[in-house]
């Protein structure tokens, strides 16, 4: 189908975009990569009166190194993230997860900011943000607000962004020395949304787990860290028995839904299998062999 009519604005500065957003009220939508929004418009599932296209806004794209973290502009394309050596080195979890996002022609347009703001429960980027405790840098005419990932993802397709706020950057803490990360996912076909995906990052100090991060996509309304599973791993050697116990804990704690693609029970099984896979790879990459 074809999209309904809308007023179209393509501001070139952030100030102009934020003014448009504030002045247009709740009937306005931001257009980033369009890879989630345009299908919704084409189906007429949404009829925003105003579209604010931020593709020509300067200063909100690109990957910056800020010491202990990467600052990734909201309009940075998923394709740029996928091929960035800086991301591969400093945030390997984001690098691997991005390879699972849709197909190459969709990553050419899709943005990290759009994925976070869209907050699809099956999307990979929000799961990475939850695991790594990313910070969402949001701007409105009223000023800047920094929101921790844990408070940003509220529910299915729902974030803490106010209608006049724009996500301008995502800050991703760099992987510590001696840590390993892995993203494991199952989808019906490569490029489809995940039935279940698990993000894991393990830091080892003297062969013992000093930090563990586990989160998931497709396994609940919004991405969360699985604290109980992480606790199981802490101070241990992340050996197969501990990995199995952590995987069972994730499977018990997650909150999957059933739909035409997979039942909730099957997704729960996948949660366990994907957690095992992700943890085993993360541990191997952290330099330990089980």
């Amino acid at each position: 189908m074809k999209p309904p009519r809308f007023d179209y604005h393509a501001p070139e500065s952030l100030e102009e975009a934020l003014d448009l957003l504030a002045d247009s009220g709740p009937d306005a939508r931001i257009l980033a990569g369009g890879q989630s929004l345009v299908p919704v418009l084409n189906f007429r599932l949404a009829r925003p009166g105003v579209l604010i296209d931020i593709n020509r806004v300067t200063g909100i794209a690109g990957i910056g190194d800020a010491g202990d973290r990467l600052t990734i502009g909201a309009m940075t394309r998923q394709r740029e993230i996928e091929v960035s050596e800086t991301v591969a080195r400093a945030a390997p979890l984001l690098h691997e997860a991005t390879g699972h996002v849709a197909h190459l022609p969709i990553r050419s347009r899709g943005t990290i900011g759009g994925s976070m703001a869209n907050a699809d429960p099956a999307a990979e980027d929000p799961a990475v943000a939850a695991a790594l405790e990313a910070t969402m840098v949001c701007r409105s005419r009223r000023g800047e607000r920094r929101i921790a990932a844990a408070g940003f993802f509220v529910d299915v397709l729902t974030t803490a962004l106010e209608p006049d706020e724009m996500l301008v950057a995502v800050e991703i803490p760099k992987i510590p020395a001696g840590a390993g990360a892995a993203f494991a996912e199952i989808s019906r076909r490569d490029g489809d949304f995940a039935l279940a995906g698990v993000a894991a990052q393990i830091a080892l100090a003297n062969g013992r787990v000093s930090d563990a991060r586990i989160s998931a996509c497709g396994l609940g309304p919004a991405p969360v860290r699985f604290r109980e599973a992480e606790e199981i791993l802490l101070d241990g050697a992340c050996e197969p028995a501990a990995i199995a116990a952590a995987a069972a804990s994730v499977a018990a704690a997650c909150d999957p839904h059933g739909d035409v693609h997979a039942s909730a029970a099957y997704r729960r099984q996948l949660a366990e299998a994907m957690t095992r896979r992700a943890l085993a790879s993360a541990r191997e990459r952290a330099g330990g062999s089980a």
Partner: protein
Amino acid sequence: MSDTRSVTVTVNGERRTGEAEPRLLLSDFLRETLGLTGTHVGCEHGICGACTVHVDGEAVRSCLMFAVQAEGAEIATVEGLADGETLHRLQQLFSKHRALQCGFCTPGMLMTALDLVRHRPDMTEAEIRSGMAAVLCRCTGYEGIVHAVAEYASGGEA
């Protein structure tokens, strides 16, 4: 009442201008405004890949972009691949490997494959299969497509 604007793009090396309402999809602009019907339209929600074209050198779904967003862009469509009567090497390989039947998916397959091979010249066959899953084909069963893309990739770019 409809707010139309003039959109100028370079398509297959030629500057073209047309009028577009902001809600006009790039796919419809190419097909209906510029008359370039080689780009096919299947689903209009990003799933089938038939509408894939290159914008500034990268494959994108033309059904998920508005024509006004392409102002000033370089666009390549399937019409630009052949050199007169001589088919592009990938098109020749599609013919050799029987990589098409009805041909509906073929424009999207070709434009996707060209970008994929440029993006990752060293793909394994499994990676080619995964990458070409970006476009749906209801006829061929993909074998011929995978073989054509593999031979194209192994021979470098034509």
